[in-house]
């Protein structure tokens, strides 16, 4: 798939109320996934498709994909710095390229390219280093000089007279965007068709443990459900769930904000990210400018953020894109992201038998959706980490083998 056809909006499928059943929970499942967002649905899809586990439930306290899956800025890229992260995100990007056909559902995956701008000499050095690291790791990456940035994205101001001049950029041409809610619907439809029960309005309120302490089920607002294995995929609420087991995790939950403008005609041909001035912008298929801000510094579960972060972000956006000066903000929102000390996810078994973790994706979870689900399904089905997930075990905080991705995580946290 490359860039979207001009009439893409007209090709959007209808709302998919009928795409999956809405079953009541059964008394028992082989695997219960807690969390019906992108990662939970992807995990269920791969449990059924690649591991033959069909007696699977996804429990969602709200509605499918109504949490972070519906609140992110839909950017997909794999140009991370560390080998372990580049490997898992590149695996994800490869799956993104297969998914439109495999899932048989048009979610408008558009490989329009991702620019990461450099504004300081240090940014330039970091960018060039990351391009070289990416190429060595098999990830497509290029370094662009300012005039090449202008050529690729004509609306970026690359004049040297602004407060944060553009000194260059990394470009990943295979990066892009997808329509996130449609990705969730595509996964839900396929998982449902393979027999997975997608249960909405079902909040997990506790865990059932056997005499040896192993997790053998969950207590929910819709009754007790026995489970051979329980996999958490609850993003910002993972520590709230783990607290029920007395399991302390290296996670802090923060509100992450984003906003969209009113609908505009197509002006923005790619994705532009800037760590230094801190804004990331793309244009959705319908025409809104989709912009991301930072995380609030403080812990929070309020699903809203601070106005000063938006002011900061808008100031950066206007400097980079003078053409946006007359655009109006349509709405802002916040999602709750679970941040780890090394800005990398935690995937794998826990000290509690029968309980598995997939969390800590911080600000980078959407782009990882296919790989996250696939390696998590493998880990749950086999009981041991998928090779791509092995570096992301909980034990790295004890061994010290951290995967320090602060530089390439795109949002400072």
């Amino acid at each position, binding site marked *: 798939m490359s860039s979207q056809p001009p009439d893409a909006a007209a090709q959007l499928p209808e709302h998919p109320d009928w795409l999956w059943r809405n079953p009541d929970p059964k008394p028992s499942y082989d695997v219960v996934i807690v969390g019906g967002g992108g990662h939970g649905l992807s995990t269920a899809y791969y449990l059924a498709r690649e591991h033959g586990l069909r007696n699977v439930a996804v429990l969602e306290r709200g509605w499918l994909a109504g949490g972070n899956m519906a609140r992110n800025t839909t950017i997909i890229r794999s140009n991370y710095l560390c080998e372990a992260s580049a490997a898992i995100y590149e695996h994800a990007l490869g799956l993104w390229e297969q998914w439109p056909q495999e899932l048989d559902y048009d979610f408008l995956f558009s490989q329009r390219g991702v620019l990461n701008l450099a504004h300081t000499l240090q940014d330039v050095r970091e960018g060039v280093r990351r391009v070289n690291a990416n190429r060595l790791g098999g990830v497509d990456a290029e370094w662009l000089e300012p005039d090449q940035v202008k050529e690729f994205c004509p609306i970026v101001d690359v004049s040297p007279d602004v407060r944060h001049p553009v000194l260059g950029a990394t470009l990943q041409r295979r990066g892009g965007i997808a329509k996130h809610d449609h990705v969730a619907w595509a996964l839900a439809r396929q998982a449902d068709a393979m027999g997975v029960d997608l249960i909405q309005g079902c909040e997990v309120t506790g865990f059932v443990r056997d005499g040896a302490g192993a997790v053998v089920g969950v207590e929910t607002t819709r009754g007790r459900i026995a489970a051979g294995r329980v996999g958490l995929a609850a993003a910002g609420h993972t520590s709230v769930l783990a607290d029920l087991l007395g399991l302390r995790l*290296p996670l802090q939950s923060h509100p992450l904000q984003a906003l969209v403008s009113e609908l505009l005609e197509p002006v923005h041909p790619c994705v532009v990210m800037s760590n230094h001035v801190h804004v990331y912008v793309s244009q959705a298929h319908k025409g809104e400018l989709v912009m991301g801000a930072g995380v609030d510094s*403080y812990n929070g579960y*309020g699903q809203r953020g601070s106005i*000063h972060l938006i002011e900061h972000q808008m100031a950066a956006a206007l400097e980079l894109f003078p053409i946006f000066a007359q655009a109006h903000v349509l709405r802002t929102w916040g999602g709750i992201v679970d941040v780890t000390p090394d800005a990398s996810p935690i995937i794998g078994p826990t000290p509690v038998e029968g309980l598995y973790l997939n969390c800590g994706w911080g600000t980078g979870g959407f782009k990882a959706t296919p790989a996250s689900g696939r390696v998590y399904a493998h880990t749950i089905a086999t009981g041991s980490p998928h090779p791509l997930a092995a570096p992301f075990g909980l034990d790295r905080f004890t061994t010290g083998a951290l995967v320090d991705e602060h530089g390439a995580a795109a949002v400072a946290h």
Partner: protein
Amino acid sequence: MLLIRCPWCGERDEVEFRYGGQANVAYPADPEALTDAEWAEYLFVRDNPKGAFAERWVHTAGCRRWFSVVRDTVSYRMTATTATTATTATTPEAAQ
């Protein structure tokens, strides 16, 4: 934006402050006695409650002094502010 009451300067906008995370995390009394797991706990693991949370802020743009507050992590309302040091912070229980 939060309105935060500095014990010395009064109420100011959040942008004047820096966040310091969980309050009352003491440096290990006997560091050499800690196991790797205990070091990991001290370095990397903090409470992350949905509800009352005792945390530290520093008034960077003002008096530059540290203090502790109890804040609800859902409503963001601050219910107690304590001029204190790192090791004698208030607790969520104290505010209830």
